[in-house]
Structure formats: structure tokens, C-alpha cells
């Protein structure tokens, strides 16, 4: 699977409207509790932080733990007062970051 993130949010909205933002990223989210066929623990490798900003200001962020399943789906809402760009970032245990961005026009 590609390491792309998928974002769904409206292309435009009215000033002050609360919009739904849906995000999905492809990631194995290896919990660190599974064992391989030789009985050895498969090391944990998960996305542990997600953050979303709008025009540079924080909108929503969270820490993820190992119970979160593969391909984490995160949905949240935001109140938009102006046009601009949402920026999303997912950071995994190794410090690798996946980023995405989407613009919205607000009338």
C-alpha cells in the first residue's frame, strides 16, 4: 500500500460552519505484542502522534497507542472562519513523518 494519506473535507464552507474532516493513512500499526513463527516478539512500529493545523494554528492532535488497528482512521470536526490550508502530519515510532494538506475556501 502507498504511504499516502487520504483526506476528505468539503471544498468550500460558509464562515463559522463546522465541517467534518475524515483522515485515513496506510500504516501497519505493528502493536509489538504479536509473535513471529519462531516465537519472537515482532517489534512495535506504530504511528504515535497525529496533528492537524489550519493556517498554522492547531486544530486537533492526539497520541495513538498500540491498540489502534492498522490503517488508522481519524475523524474530527473544525469550525472554519476563513479560507486556508489544513496541514496534517502523522509521526511514527522511528520519527518518520507522513504529511498531507488540503485547502478550503470559506465565503
Amino acid at each position, binding site marked *: *500500500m*502507498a504511504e*499516502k494519506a*487520504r483526506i*476528505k473535507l468539503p471544498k468550500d464552507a460558509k464562515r463559522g460552519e463546522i465541517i467534518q474532516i*475524515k483522515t*485515513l493513512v*496506510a500504516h501497519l500499526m505493528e502493536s509489538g505484542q504479536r509473535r513471529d*513463527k519462531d516465537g519472537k516478539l515482532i517489534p512495535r512500529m506504530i504511528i504515535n502522534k497525529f496533528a492537524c493545523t489550519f493556517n498554522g494554528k492547531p486544530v486537533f492532535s492526539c497520541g495513538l497507542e498500540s491498540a489502534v488497528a*492498522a*490503517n488508522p*482512521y481519524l475523524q474530527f470536526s473544525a469550525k472554519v472562519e476563513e479560507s486556508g490550508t489544513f496541514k496534517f502530519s502523522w509521526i511514527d515510532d522511528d520519527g518518520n513523518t507522513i504529511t498531507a494538506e488540503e485547502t478550503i475556501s470559506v465565503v
Partner: protein
Amino acid sequence: MSMKRDVVLTVGVAGTMGLLLILGVMSAGIFETSAQQTRLPPIATEGFASARPRTPYPGWPTRDNSKFNTLTAIKSSAIPTEPRKISGPIAGNPEIGAKLVADRTRGGSCIACHVMGPAAGADLPGNVGPDLSEIGNAGRDDEWLFNYVNDARVYNPETVMPPWGTHGIFNEAEIGHIVAFLKTLKTPARFKTALDDPDRRPNPVETRDNLDSLINPAVWVVEEKAPALWMTPGATGASCASCHANPTQAFRTWAAEMPKWEPRLDKVFGVEEFVTRHAKATTGNDWLMQSDENTAISTYLRFIANGTEMKADIASAPAKAAYERGQALSMRKLGALNFSCADCHAPDRAANKWIRGQRLGELRGQLDHFPTWRTSQQSIWDIRKRLQWCQVAIWADDLPPDASAYGELELYLAAQNAGQKLSVPGIRH
């Protein structure tokens, strides 16, 4: 006509693909007006379409099935016709029997298909077979009970009940324990919730939108990976796009007519085997069945035909014969548990009933969503892999994905799904 051919041959053409394209266009022009000739797409006819030697899929059990029927050989022992005479009462320990009827390492076991009073805590028993919670009051003698478990075919040759004794899954002493336990069953089962009672359990309905990429990871494959593979040249320097620049138009309904009889190899081709052999012959790619690339392209070819009604040919002579072979195979009893496809999936047998917590579906509705994302496997399964797993689950012998028998079964299955609209990739547990 011959003058046109000379012109083609003397023109300097750069690259084999260019020549093939020109010849293709020319012969279409030459032959269209004469007999209804269909040009068959090039396929690699040597070798296997799936990996050899076969390696078992990770986590799949392997069993010795050498003594039992497979889709390719009849090997099970003869069906006894007479019940065994039991002279005296059967000695058995009902507590051991209570454990055996719930032992999942023994093919189920009994409560996979039967409600049996308190057995296994009445936790999600099935209802393929009758409720046995009051069998102790049914007036059946020890001989009858013993023979029914040992080999029910002596009483009902059409039975779905596995021949537990004849096929060596339980020995005589164990059947004695089971009989002793059955004789203690005299009151209806008490279920903790409506979910545990198979007669009151609601039917599972798949409500997820399988074509929403935020719900079904398989959609990423058809939106990104497959189109990229389509454009990537193989060893010959050609890609799929070299001949098929616009697949979403050209193949708008193609996959809905699969699987198809392939006369050059005397077998039924599903989409997956066709992709392997056609890609090899044209692009040089080695996209074996169930490789990531083959699965991506095969899913994509059906995805672009979504909404089309399935209509596989079973009218032409070789297809009709293959269909009839598939139908016969669907009724062959297989493996240690002696189940045929029809036993679980025919409407007049166990279809629409429960094996433990799993509902058995009818044949119709089983194919339109394949290949499907399986959330419990975190991968895309094509129909051949699903057939393989069915066989493993019923303690029968799974074949390589390109087995002729699977092609015939797939054709039979496609015929039962005629008119169903493709909706691929599916999403299932």
C-alpha cells in the same frame, strides 16, 4: 488482399509491438467481413500460472488428506450400507462426551451444527443439524445413537453429517462417550442472549460502502497501484498501456463475462490466470496468480466493469461441458469431514443456516464482490484463494489456484450469479 500484406511486411517497423499492432489492425479489417472470427488474445501457454513448488500460506493448517476424496481424486473409503449391530448398552462417560462435542480440534465439532443443551455453555452453536437438546427423551436406542455418530449414511445416504467413525475422527470409545452424553440431554438449551440462539440470531448484512477509499483499503489498489502497474513496461519493453491505452473504456464490461473457456489450454480461465498468461506473452511480466501485481490488476479489471451484470458463457459446447463438470464437483463429498460445496451452500441443504457463529450463504451473491478486502486478513483475496480456504476449513485438500477443477467450480459459481452486478473490491471480515 495479398498486396496489402506485402505492404505491411516491407514497411520498416520499429519494435515488435508496432508490427503486432499493425497486423492486428490489418487482420481485423481483412477478417471482419468473412466468418465471425474472434482473435484470441496472446497467452503464454507453457508453465504454471501460480508458484511452484507450492508453499503453504502462513498460518494455514496442513493435514494429511491422502485417504479422502479431493476435487481431483476419489479416495474415501466405501460407504457402509448396514448399521453396526450393538448388542449391549454402550459404556461411556458423559463428562468426556460433553468435552468432545465441543472440541474445535475435531472439525467443529458437534456444536458447530447442533444446539446441544448445555454443551460448550450454549455459546453460539450452529443449526445445520437438528437441535439435540432433548435427544435423551427421543426414544432412540444406543445402537441408533452409536451408528448415527459413527456413520449416519447407513440411515440416510444423503446426510450432511460427517462419518466421524468411518473417517477416523473419533474412535469407538469416544463415540461411546458422546452417546452417553447425548442420553443426558433432556431439557431445551438455555441461551444467554438472542445472539446465541441460532434460530433467533439476526442475519449479518454488509452495510459498509466497499467503494469508499476511507473504508476499504483495497480501493487504494485500484485507484493508485493498478493504474501505475498498467503503465509500467515489462521485460519486452511493453506495458499494458502499449496496446490498451484506455482500459476504462475498452474493458467496461469485459470482466463480467469471465470466467471463460480457453481452448488453447483446455481449461476455464478466471481473470487472474488470464492476467498471468496474457501479461507474460505481451509485456514479459511474471505476474503469477496471487502475487500483489496480479491481484491489483485482476481487481482493477473488475473494478472498471462495476455495475455490469455478470454473464459467463455456459452455452457454447466446451463451456457447457466445463459447467457440468463444475456442477458435479460442487456435489462431490470431500475430505475427512465429507462435505461438498452443495452441503453448505445449496438452498435445499445448509445454506442460510449457521455453523457456530458463521452464516452459510447461498451460491448466488457469492461472486459479485470478489476480489474482496478481508479485514481479518488485512489483504485482498481473489475467488481462488477463497475456494482454497473453504477446502482447508472443511479438512479437504486445497489445490493450486490455477487448478482446472477450480476453474470449473468458478464457472459453475459464475452461472449461479448471472445477472448479479459487479461491485469490486468487496469488503468482508
